[in-house]
């Protein structure tokens, strides 16, 4: 007994070392598996508050550019509204002439919310973004996040005030996309290297497209509305097994420059999830 005690006292630093490494590994593993571990991320309120305060200070220096960007986006949206209104009017006229009464309303399906970015990382293989809207603002996991330029990512975890976003620049990110003007869809994945590029990994070989074509969201995942821009095709190569094309996509969003984003929730998302979960697994 005495020898065991002596041994433990003599080598106590080994036990401390194993204990600390054990806790660290538990955290690493837990964060990868267990979705509720918001405390040990920067989505917790203390880190969120400190990042929010520094952001408030730094923000002033870029107000001019942000303003320009918002104005540009505004005018784009105005143009679109005018165009769509005239289209609706035309269609309603047509429907009235035919005596149709079927008018589908799309406007209520998606709900938009704005948020500011309080923390952002670019240099890791699994990057995360923290935004200042959480459960109390109606943000939930698996909502889509995009900026005025294009898709940013998907909400991963939420706390009361803050949310953790899984951006395109994360090796776990999978977003269903298609090339504009094409009906084939494919998955966008990041290889962990250059923050300007991501890859469409499983494009069928019969897909026709050219360099510079725009990649947009497909709308199949029910997280994003269809047609939100993602990037443009930069180059093309065959996948390792030669069955598909692998396209390098230059992302529209500059993740280093991001400051405010939109969060989009789909009211039909839960319904679609439940339906899809009933698909029998092989």
């Amino acid at each position, binding site marked *: 007994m005495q020898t065991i005690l002596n041994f433990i006292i003599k080598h106590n*630093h080994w036990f401390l070392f194993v204990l600390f490494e054990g806790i*660290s*590994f538990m*955290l*690493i593993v837990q964060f990868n598996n267990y979705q509720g571990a918001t405390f040990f*991320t920067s989505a917790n309120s*203390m880190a969120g508050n400190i990042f929010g305060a520094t952001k408030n200070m730094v923000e002033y220096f870029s107000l001019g550019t942000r303003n320009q960007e918002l104005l540009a986006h505004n005018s784009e949206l105005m143009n679109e509204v005018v165009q769509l209104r005239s289209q609706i009017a035309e269609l309603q006229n047509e429907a009235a002439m035919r005596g149709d009464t079927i008018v589908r309303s799309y406007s209520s399906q998606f709900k938009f919310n704005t948020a500011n970015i309080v923390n952002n990382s*670019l240099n890791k293989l699994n990057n995360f973004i923290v935004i200042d809207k959480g459960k109390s603002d109606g943000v939930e996991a698996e909502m889509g996040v995009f900026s005025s330029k294009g898709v940013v990512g998907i909400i991963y975890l939420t706390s009361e005030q803050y949310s953790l976003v899984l951006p395109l620049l994360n090796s776990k990110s999978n977003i269903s996309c298609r090339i504009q003007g094409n009906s084939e869809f494919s998955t966008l994945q990041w290889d962990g*290297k250059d923050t300007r590029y991501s890859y469409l990994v499983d494009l069928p070989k019969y897909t026709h497209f050219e360099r510079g074509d725009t990649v947009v969201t497909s709308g199949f995942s029910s997280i994003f509305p269809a047609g939100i821009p993602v990037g443009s095709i930069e180059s093309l190569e065959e996948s390792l097994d030669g069955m598909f094309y692998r396209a390098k996509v230059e992302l529209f969003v500059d993740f280093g420059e991001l400051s405010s984003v939109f969060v989009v929730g789909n009211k039909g998302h839960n319904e679609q999830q439940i339906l899809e979960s009933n698909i029998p697994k092989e």
Partner: protein
Amino acid sequence: MTGTYLIRIRNIILLILVQSLIFNRIHLFGYATAAVYLIFLLKLPRYTSRNELLLWAFIMGITIDLFGSTPGINAAAATLLAFVRNPILESFIQKSNPEDLTPGIPSMRFGGYMSYATICITIFYTALYILELFTIRYPMTLLIGVASSTLLTILFILVTEKFSSK
């Protein structure tokens, strides 16, 4: 005694803030980041026990993780560094050196301190990148990341050493 600990806690808070608010946002060439908060562990005096080193390292690592959304990764790597620091330090100084020697260029000469710091930082970053890449097979990314980040950190250690020696 209490005075030294108060100063240490102040230094830790300062380093953590500087690390998470400034240095974690600097990524040279998309790879290199500098872990300046390790300076605290490197500069603790020679007599510091392994237990104490481990405790400081774990506290700092876990706080940096908390700010950077990387739970456990910095904590694990910093704990490893703290565990191997004393043997590495001993191999670069004489037995006859005073017990309260603070590692630095004045006390260890340029070559001695640089080798000590380089070995420690390389161990830290190797552990960090392996933990971060975990299931992914990119040996080149690992090598470039470890080498460039270690270099950048050493650069900042040199700068702080120059300023503090004056």
